[in-house]
């Protein structure tokens, strides 16, 4: 039996199909979840995909955070449910206070879409165990509000606890503090990532296939359990 990984569609989610595809290519069973349902359909992990849920109105992720399914996800995450938030999903996780910090307008004020080099800083989270610690990968990045910020004390804490999951290399594309591309919660089951690993899972359509590791990591962990 393989793992069931849910992908939530909010109004305005855009990369939900891509995340479902990545889950499938990694060998897990993709399960489409709907924002209005209070039912996680017994999934073993959840991906909050990229996009512009609710049109980014108010603040990115601020409205989605209150959708019925998020109640279940917040509850589950506190009990160890693996959750990966990509881009808008990362923003929703920060708005939900499952992750510290916030994501703000890119420092150069433009939307940016580029193939981004990253270093995986922590391979002990639920979503990064397929990588070597310090492994360099290239995956697409595309955001308008991807600048990660938190107060200095929080940033120091994240560094000290090894909760910086990935860092931008060569170019900081959005003004993120300390080049942070992704962070995790203290338990390591909740990860937020601004770049898009689900767009780097096939040689035909991605710059690399180095994003697949996020999805094989969760499968490995769940099947080992």
């Amino acid at each position: 039996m393989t793992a069931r990984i849910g992908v939530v569609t909010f109004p305005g989610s855009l990369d939900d199909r891509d995340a479902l595809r990545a889950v499938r290519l990694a060998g897990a069973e993709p399960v489409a979840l709907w924002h209005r349902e209070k039912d996680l359909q017994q999934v073993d992990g959840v991906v909050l995909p990229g996009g512009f849920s609710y049109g980014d109105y108010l603040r990115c992720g601020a409205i989605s955070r209150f959708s019925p399914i998020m109640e279940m996800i917040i509850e589950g995450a506190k009990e160890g449910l693996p959750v990966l938030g990509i881009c808008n999903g990362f923003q929703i996780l920060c708005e939900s206070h499952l992750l510290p910090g916030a994501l703000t307008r890119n420092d150069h004020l433009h939307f940016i879409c580029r193939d981004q080099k990253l270093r995986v800083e922590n391979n002990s989270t639920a979503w990064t165990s397929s990588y070597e610690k310090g492994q360099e990968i290239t995956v697409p990045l595309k955001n308008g509000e991807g600048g990660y910020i938190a107060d200095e004390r929080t940033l120091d804490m994240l560094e000290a606890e090894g909760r910086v999951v990935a860092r931008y290399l060569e170019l900081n594309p959005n003004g993120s503090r300390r080049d942070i591309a992704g962070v995790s919660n203290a338990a390591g089951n909740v990860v937020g990532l601004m770049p898009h690993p689900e767009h780097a899972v096939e040689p035909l359509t991605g710059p690399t296939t180095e994003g697949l590791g996020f999805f094989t990591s969760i499968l490995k962990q769940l099947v080992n359990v």
Partner: protein
Amino acid sequence: MILDTTEHAAKTPDTPLPWAELGLKPDEYERVVEILGRRPTGAELAMYSVMWSEHCSYKSSKVHLRQFGEKAPASDTMLVGIGENAGVVDVGQGYAVTFKIESHNHPSYIEPYQGAATGVGGIVRDILAMGARPVAVMDPLRFGAADHPDTRRVLPGVVAGIGGYGNCLGLPNIGGEVVFDPCYQGNPLVNALCVGVMRHEDIHLAKASGTGNKVILYGARTGGDGIGGVSVLASETFDSTGPAKRPAVQVGDPFQEKLLIECTLEVFAEKLVVGIQDLGGAGLSCATSELASAGSGGMRVELDTVPLRDSSLSPEEILMSESQERMCAIVEPGHVDRFMEICEKWDVIATVIGEVTDGERLEIYWHGEQIVDVPPRTVAHEGPVYQRPYARPDWQDALQADDPSKLARPAGGDELRAAVLALVSSPNQASKAWITGQYDRYVLGNTVLAQPEDSGMIRIDEETNLGVAVATDGNGRFAKLDPYTGAQLALAEAFRNVAATGARPLAVSDCLNFGSPEDPAVMWQFAEATRGLADGCLALGTPVTGGNVSLYNQTGDTAIHPTPVVAVLGVIDDVTRRTPIAFAEQGQLVYLLGETRDEFGGSAWAQVAHDHLGGLPPAVDLEREKLLAEILISGSRDGMIDAAHDLSDGGLVQALAESCLRGGNGARIVVPDGVDAFTLLFSESAGRAVVAVPRSEELRFTDMCGARGLPATRIGVVDGDALDVQGEFTLPLTELLAAHEATLPAIIA
């Protein structure tokens, strides 16, 4: 305020109406009166005036556009032709693809961000209305001089608008063009293309049939945006106390459009609609009259049921409003509840606003009183048609006589080297990464090729790897020198670009951007360009499936260059066999396909080095284009070529520079004996491409070219980290890259 009902209009024949302010000519207004047998009501006048506008009625261009049908090549792939929201093409395996290109030029000059954004939104709804899931967008753009201060206002706004809307909508932007020329200073061209995919059985049409079927308006509420000239009616004649000035440019909400797409596709999947139309130009006037006109019966609409954003809107304004993100569906009564459920699921507002009747009239009521009673065909499909006078301009001969052969040419390696750097760093030939880096090209996960490749390519079936490729091209400089040839060159270039990626060209959509049709010289350009395009499509076997005409792109008496932008759609059975432009592997052989002649009229070199436009554009040989395309497609399918790049603006050296930079590999080029290096590198002869051939495939490839009679000249090898034209100059890729990439950021910053 008295409601101007049909009854009131019949009783008050002498009430003066602002038909002239609304753009109707005296004889056009007379015709309206004749059709109705009385003066029109304010609402009727609003409908006729906007539907009979140039934009909606094609009254000046219609007589020329007919050629696209009359000269259409026999094609067994065309499923839906010109006249619907977009044409539909059979691409095999039960799939149909629809695509169309449209202009949003004037709004984008007034308000660059919203003008460009709603241009994307409008074309996406056209594609959606055919029953297709939109899968990609492209944007051919034209701006004034790169260093003009106003370009700094218009360009960033347009780019942000396209990105802001398209990115938020979740459609990959896979290509387009960016061209600078002073002729577009007050008239930037913002064209937008969308491609959609569906199964054959899912094709939907814009018609209202079946008496008793419900007319459902769904999507955004109707507001006061985009009303334009019609506010004359509302604010001056009928209600001088109401809100007077309303913005003529619509405001887009891509989030609402995303919901509209998902909701509409779900409604299609459950087969709940009989007919469907998007609301674009002319809003409800257009949608109701077109649906009724194309259907079998009449239609009755209760206009006061339309959900409003602004309760002070008059009925005329509601009819004219171009508020975005709205659709109109015809639904059988038994399906209405399910239709509403799906709309509710997606948080989309839906309202039954009327029904299909067994009469032949379009009747619109306002709180029970009739304000419109018209034969819908007279509004939608039987508008005025003009035979505008046209004449070859008196300056055309002098322009063509101003031959580029007199221009000083670079001599020797150093001058050639400098000319190459000047070319690749010129605004038109420089890297457009600053722009395209603001567009999401990855979303949906099916983008196989995107700019700066020759065409954008999308996988449409993950199991079989079936895909489509689209390229858009246009060269206003060529078309200015000779509109007939210029239109064919645009077609040939787009055709070649599709073939260069390995796809077989199937069909054409066009966006014809011209000056004022009231100027006989412009009308001649239009007549010549459409004739050239129709003849070209016949010769290449690629029918025109639809498109758009944008006239009045001129400031005072000065028109833009005639700018036919041509989009070609192709199909590729296996996208894993696509050919990119990159020289990816050292040691591969570089071949030039086709013949190079001394052709510099309208060339990029003449513009960059001498700011010159004169002479004749390159000659077109469409049989040669077909042969070249066959070679490129076969070479791709059979693994004989690993890279291909079409030769167009900037000629061979521009293509070599781009292929080297894209692949991160240099090339050693040997100028063949007896060939002039400058002509070889900079000429813009059509019907050519450069390819990289693995050594193991060389014999097979040259045999194929030889057997089919296509000239193929080995000109070098992929090698090193410089573009090295032996005996002439060497350009390290780092220097080439810096020159290529620095220009645009410097202009905009």
